């Protein structure tokens, strides 16, 4: 049983939260796209490094492969942490402007949405076990921890894909909720997915992995304990992996576009063409770099960041096109401007994100490139003091505003 466009439009309107939103919808849309870029890149790095660590583990008789397997296991471990934390922001902003779509999709597959949490815990725990056990001379059986971990990560990726895709199909929600008129509140079904779209993001993990490897080489090239042989081996591998990834992405992207409704004219979309262009560019650069395996840089990683940004924008454009027949336009969301809380976020983002995040990342970056103990430079020391300062100021202002508001409202 399907609903007509008018009923769906009405439903989507009434499902919007009656409290409205505290800033202009475009602000949330931009933040949603921007934060998703970093989320998906860490998803790609996590899946890519996890896959490579298992592959390298199988070839661990060769010292380079063994070392790479151990390194990639660690990289995947950190990347999963990062993808989770960076996934929170786009999830938050999606709920702000696309709450009807996201909530409906989740409820209709409620058991899977909750299953996602527990399977991610199992997968990540399994990966941590693999990380603890994957050291020099590790026995072959430990790889099962890694395989189980990666299998759960892929399952979770698929669940997220399905929940996102189902959110785009409001005309089918009713037929999923009440197939043949009989209401099914169990939430035990995944109702829709799009293989081309899902596989495109898996293929993107291959490309991003290649770029990550090249960045890894560039980062460690200053360390004497990272021999040139090993780094050249990884750099060469990175280039090859990018080439494989780019081809896979071109194929799956074509598949994804072909699956889209004809009314979208997806193949002639400027953003789709830009994605093809970036992939071809990446392919060309990689072919050129194949000839100079000792030259290292962050270039490829920078290109993948641009690629992810264009894909994120394209993905949002698609969502807008999917919503067009139902007149769902985020710009019509009721705005109830709230300046203090808006200021809270942006000042925290700039002040705390900049100084505290900057201090942590600089310390990690500098220490990681130093053999032995890193002595903080005057600049890093200043950054550390500023980070402490901003935290004290932030907590102080928080309590001053809090006490003032509380006393004003209570007494």
């Amino acid at each position, binding site marked *: 049983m399907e609903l007509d466009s008018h*009923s769906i439009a009405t439903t989507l309107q009434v499902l919007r939260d009656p409290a409205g*939103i*505290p800033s202009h919808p475009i602000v949330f849309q931009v933040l949603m796209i921007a934060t998703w870029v970093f989320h998906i890149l860490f998803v790609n790095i996590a899946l890519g490094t996890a896959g490579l660590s298992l592959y390298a583990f199988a070839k661990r008789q060769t010292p380079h492969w063994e070392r790479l397997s151990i390194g990639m296991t660690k990289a995947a471990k950190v990347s999963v942490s990062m993808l989770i*934390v960076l996934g929170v922001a786009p999830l938050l902003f999606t709920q702000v402007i696309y709450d009807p779509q996201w909530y409906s999709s989740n409820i209709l597959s409620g058991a899977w949405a909750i299953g996602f949490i527990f399977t991610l815990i199992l997968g*990540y725990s399994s990966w941590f076990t693999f990380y603890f056990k994957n050291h020099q001379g590790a026995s072959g059986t430990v790889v099962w921890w890694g395989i189980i971990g990666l299998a759960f990560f892929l399952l979770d990726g698929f669940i997220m894909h399905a929940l996102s895709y189902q959110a785009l199909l409001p005309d089918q929600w009713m037929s999923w*909720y009440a197939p043949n008129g009989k209401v099914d509140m169990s*939430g035990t079904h995944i109702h829709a997915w799009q293989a081309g779209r899902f596989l495109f993001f898996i293929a993107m993990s291959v490309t991003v992995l290649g770029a990550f490897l090249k960045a890894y080489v560039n980062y460690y090239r200053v360390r004497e304990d990272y021999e040139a042989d090993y780094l050249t081996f990884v750099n060469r591998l990175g280039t090859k992996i990018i080439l494989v990834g780019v081809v896979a992405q071109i194929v799956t992207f074509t598949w994804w576009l072909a699956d889209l409704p004809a009314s979208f004219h997806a193949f002639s979309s400027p953003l789709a063409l830009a994605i093809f262009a970036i992939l071809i560019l990446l392919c060309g650069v990689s072919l050129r770099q194949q000839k100079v395996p000792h030259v290292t840089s962050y270039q490829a990683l920078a290109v993948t960041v641009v690629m992810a940004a264009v894909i994120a924008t394209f993905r949002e454009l698609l969502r807008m096109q999917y919503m067009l027949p139902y007149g769902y336009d985020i710009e019509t969301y009721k705005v109830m401007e709230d300046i203090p809380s808006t200021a809270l976020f942006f000042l925290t983002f700039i002040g705390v994100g900049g100084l505290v995040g900057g201090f942590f990342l600089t310390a990690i970056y500098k220490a990681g490139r130093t053999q032995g103990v890193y002595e903080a430079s005057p600049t890093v020391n200043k950054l550390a003091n500023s980070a402490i300062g901003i935290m004290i100021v932030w907590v102080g202002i928080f309590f001053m505003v*809090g006490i003032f508001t509380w006393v004003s*409202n209570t007494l």
Partner: protein
Amino acid sequence: MLDTLGLYPTWYVPTIGTAWVMGIIGTIHVLASHTSVGASWLFALIETKSVTENKPELMEYIKKYGVFLLVFSYIIGSITGPGIWYAITVASPRGVGGLIHNFVWVWAAEWVYFTVEVIGVYALVYLIGKIDPRTHLKLTWVFALASWATMLLIVGILSFMMWPGNKSWYDTGSTLDAFFNLNFFAHLGLRTAFMFAIAGAVGGILAATMKDKNVRIEITRFLSKMGLAGVFLGMIMWMWYVQTLPSNAKIIMQTQLPGYIAPTLFAVLGATLVYFSWTAWKPMQLKQGFAIAMTAIIAIAGLWPEERSRESIRKPYVAGQYIYSNQTIARDVPGKQIKSNLPLIAEKGILATHPFVPESLRHVTAANRLQAGEFITKVMCANCHSMGATGLRPMIQKLHGSTDVAQIKAYLSGALYNGLVPYMPRIPLPDKEQELVAEYLASLSQKSSHLQTIALATKGE
């Protein structure tokens, strides 16, 4: 459009209900996150001691606890954090939607802290011995403050779920008025106290494994003092917290919570005091199994009933005393231009206004009466009540197994229609829908007694 309510589909979980799904994930998260925040302060204090008293051997403990935290708090805690969103989404989408739309910028600010916290924990653990001690100490203090900031930001949202505590927010719609509600500071104090206590208990699991005897004694005593301070502060804050609760919460606490909860919580409190006093007195007697057992006791017998009670005493609301657990908006909020759903429900009922009613149920016939009644009942009641014979506040038990449609309908049209039961939502269904719900509820008891008869007959054979 005016005749349609903003109600989402329902996810029905037999027996435990969606409330328990939320409760289970929430409790796991509280355990992991509070341990993490408490541990960050523990690290900062111990590391200060290590640097100022030149005791680098203490850093070994921080490293151990840090790695443990990575697994315990940063796998389980960081996944169950968004997990709570997922759980509330599928259990009470209107509730989470209301919170998100009131507090999006607060949550976004918390996300900034969450991000730097995750980067920070890796930096803290892996840079021990790889960066000069003074810079590392600064890093640890920044990490502790950032971790606590995540608590500062989330507590305002959680306490708003209980109630704003005054009429300001309803009039202004201001996030500040909602966030710094009456309940806020007491709640913050309570959670801050708990984070010290739980970090002290979990810390014992690692302290017991320290090989250097002096370090072990010093750390264990430190943990004990921190734990005791947490417990005493917690008791004071609890007394304040109770004073800041709404009247419906106090009534539920006195009359509706299971009888075992208060004695269990007092027993856990007593056990925790004895545990920390003992380990302060005889630190070498602290064994790992003992610390694990204490942590488990606090989690299972302390935290779970406490979190469950906190969820329960908020009833019938899920947020700000304006959204009921069953998704309906219970009152006007002029500051946000929000209108109550209740007048429309009273006028037209659920079947005519719920956007996810299948066409076959829009028109009630003799053949679909039971399904229509089931639909309305699950939408309005399943968030808090199991439709089975057992589980979360089972309907059959609540109605004392009544199969009398008229009697059930009298309750629906009286106390429930007018909102006279403090812990129940006001559900002003029109007469014909009261009839359908009453018939369905009666059928549950009929089915249950029929099954009992069959079971007895089978036993008799």
